[in-house]
């Protein structure tokens, strides 16, 4: 992201403003800047609302290290960790969704459809029903995600033929299998662990704690994933025109395919492990950006990360405040916001196409 922006600023300052390549960048660049502004606004909003409303002045003071103890506690122990996890999870899921969609060249592809979250869910539910500590639940979820990835990848690879529809079908069927196991665990579990499991299945950020702020795994994986996607971005643009055409234009398909799958899986596994099973973000955010901005992955990747982060952060803020003190699962709100927005954009996109 940063490298990208610095490069852009250099390019822009070297080019005259009338330069056509500058004009090409103007629209996506504006949207990117707006998304950054929206991200900051979302953070401020998330920090200010709740059972103890805080003014922006109080937030700034607390962030500087001043302010009352209670403000400090509310921000650093409760709201900031939760906002931080929500934003990163949204970014991870959107980026993973974008990569999966190019990999399978299917607009419906999404980490969840490929069964990665199903595996993670089963892992975590087994840990919950065994009464393990929350850190072990994360480990168990991560292992579940990995098992699912290896299963889908291994089965779809089969005897060499590795085509997108076969991978998608394998993923869908494996996901259905996980769904059955989840239902089985739910039906045999004792009542006291049911609520925790259900929340986990619907996506839950309420456990976020201060120590997560110093845990580098999520931001490191997100930034590494984004940089890697940006490095491959031009190849991804070409991969949308099919593997044969990509080969013709000088891309080695097998390593690209493998790295896309592994990267998308690592991103998803990280997200699912921290935030439970929040579907849908990875499916709709990249499409929204495609409709609003550009199909060029050099813009799509950073914009998806920011927009996904904003969507999840806003959804989570609403989820914990709208019927406070009761909390809703974040996944419910993501769907409430995302579905109408996506349908509107899709409809608008089609209408524009018909007009042009």
């Amino acid at each position: 992201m940063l490298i990208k922006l610095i490069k852009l600023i250099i390019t822009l300052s070297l080019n005259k403003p009338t330069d056509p390549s500058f004009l090409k960048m103007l629209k996506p660049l504006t949207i990117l800047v707006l998304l950054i502004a929206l991200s900051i606004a979302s953070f401020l909003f998330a920090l200010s609302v709740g059972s103890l409303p805080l003014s922006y002045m109080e937030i700034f003071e607390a962030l500087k290290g001043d302010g009352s103890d209670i403000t400090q506690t509310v921000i650093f122990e409760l709201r900031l960790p939760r906002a931080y996890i929500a934003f990163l999870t949204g970014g991870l899921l959107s980026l993973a969704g974008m990569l999966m969609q190019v990999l399978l060249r299917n607009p419906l592809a999404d980490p969840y459809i490929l069964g990665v979250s199903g595996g993670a869910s089963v892992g975590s539910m087994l840990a919950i029903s065994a009464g393990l500590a929350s850190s072990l639940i994360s480990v168990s979820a991560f292992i579940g995600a990995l098992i699912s990835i290896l299963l889908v990848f291994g089965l779809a690879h089969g005897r060499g033929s590795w085509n997108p529809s076969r991978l998608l079908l394998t993923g869908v069927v494996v996901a259905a299998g996980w769904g059955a196991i989840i239902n089985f665990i739910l039906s045999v579990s004792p009542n006291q662990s049911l609520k925790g499991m259900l929340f986990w299945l619907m996506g839950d950020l309420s456990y976020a704690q201060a120590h997560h702020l110093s845990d580098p795994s999520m931001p490191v994986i997100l930034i590494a994933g984004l940089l890697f996607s940006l490095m491959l971005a031009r190849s991804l643009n070409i991969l949308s025109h099919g593997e044969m055409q990509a080969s013709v234009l000088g891309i080695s398909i097998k390593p690209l395919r493998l790295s896309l799958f592994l990267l998308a899986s690592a991103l998803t596994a990280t997200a699912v492990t921290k935030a439970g099973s929040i579907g849908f973000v990875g499916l709709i955010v990249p499409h929204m950006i495609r409709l609003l901005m550009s199909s060029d992955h050099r813009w799509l990747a950073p914009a998806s990360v920011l927009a996904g982060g904003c969507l999840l952060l806003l959804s989570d803020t609403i989820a914990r405040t709208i019927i406070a003190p009761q909390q809703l699962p974040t996944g419910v709100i993501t769907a409430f916001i995302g579905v109408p927005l996506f349908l509107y954009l899709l409809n608008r996109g089609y209408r524009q196409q018909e007009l042009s």
Partner: protein
Amino acid sequence: MSLLSTSNLNIHIGNTPVCHNLNMTCEAGEVWGILGRNGKGKTTLLHTLAGLRPAVSGEILIRENNILELSRKKIAQQLGVLLQHHEDSFPATVLETVITGRHPHLNHWQWESQSDWQCAHQALSTVQLSHLSKRPINQLSGGERQRVAIATLITQNPDIMLLDEPNSHLDLKYQIQLLNQLCQQTRTQGKTTIMTLHDLNLTARYCDKLILLLGDGETMTGTSKELLNESNLQKLYDHPISRIESDGYPVFITK
């Protein structure tokens, strides 16, 4: 130095041989045609020459370098393919699609320069699509999509051009215009072009040399003047064809 050559090339589709010990040498400035009936392996041969599928045995050399030892990127800098099928999963614009032709000439982090965009615009004006440059690719007609693919190839600017049925979906005007353009580029800029064709009249007009795929691995190579006679064509297409002369060009009519 030949741009593209094969020695003792054997290609199979499943168990059916396409060519047996094919030896050919494409020199700079030459236009080659591949003729054969449906399913005899024209596209397979073209894809094998591009390194997109493995041969059973034999060698393919690009400028005397074995294609197996070249990276995809190195190949793409010298060799371009016009594919028969075009896939567009996500709605890129015409210009965004054409600029992908510059990919093999750029590094990972590099953005297209002014001159790359110029290449793309020029290619679009060659195929007369400048007015559609901002149109989403999935709204084009078949012929327009084919011209976008040709523009992408021109933007890639390879020395070796492999064209799989370049005329498909094109109307008469563009068939002639674009073949003129590509063949003229080949001759004046020292490139080489190999194309699969179904139209014998265009073959006679544009191709210097031919590869006839007769089936069961049997092939004939030579100049089009030598090969395009009635007995060869009867054997190739399993149908009688007569050859007459008109305006100095041979014309072929099915009986």
